[in-house]
């Protein structure tokens, strides 16, 4: 298979890859946002109780 043809998507490259990029941004962004939210909460809990989420000192 020819990779150049593959990336060209029969002339629909912008639309096809644009769609998949949107999915990547939305899913990646959601996971990143949740991870940051969790990290922020974990540091707050650490400063309050002196224990990390795992219960380690």
């Amino acid at each position, binding site marked *: 298979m020819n990779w150049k043809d593959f990336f060209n998507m029969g*002339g629909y490259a912008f639309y096809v890859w644009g769609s998949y990029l949107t999915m990547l941004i939305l899913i990646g962004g959601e996971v990143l946002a949740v991870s940051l939210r969790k990290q922020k909460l974990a540091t707050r809990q650490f400063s309050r109780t002196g224990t990390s989420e795992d219960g380690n000192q």
Partner: protein
Amino acid sequence: MNWYKYASPSAFYPLAGRLIPWFAIPAAVLFIAGLYVGFFVAPTDFQQGEAYRIMFIHVPAAWMGMLLYVLMAGYAAIGWAFNARLASMMASSISIAGASFTLLSLVTGALWGKPTWGTWWVWDARLTSTLILLFLYIGFISLQAAIDDPKRADRAGAVLAIVGVVNVPIIYFSVQWWNTLHQGATIRILGKPSIHSTMLAAMLIMLAACWLYSVAVTLMRLRCIIMEREQHISLVNAESRSRLQTSVQA
């Protein structure tokens, strides 16, 4: 085993943590498998050319947007009717994932519509009702964010979510009720699907991946919401206690 125990947010918190990898890892595997089948196995469509490959995300995203809305309204209703905090938190957590999938279905729909219909957007029944779905999600999220008291925020959100459920069958049947530009259902519950079997396989694998991803990310966010709302309880202790129990049982 007493399942009612997990209705309490602090008891569910460690369980949710243990469940996440069981959904996240299969989701990642199925996303890769779905993309492989979608791009390397499924043939080129004789009418739409390669542009149809957008459908492998558009269709699952649109389904997830509708299904998650019903699920969100269901949890919100349970939380409201039985005063169950965990169910209300679940509704808040689902709303973000649902809004994200609905937005994805609209964007991918526009990206497919431009080369296929020749326009990014038409005020067609299905497109318009899906846009209303996105506004309902945004309304739910901003309403909850605007109210400081979590109990009142849950109740107000529940009313909005339940009223908005009416829109879901409207979206689903819009292609039958009105003469729309949007095509009819590709996959029918009864009868044969109207597409090639490898195309159908790619779509179903992507749908399964989206489901698993939604569960994983919803549980992750739910843990954050529990942490934020139940600050008076030390979840750290709850988690280490449950780990201790499991290790004792093992």
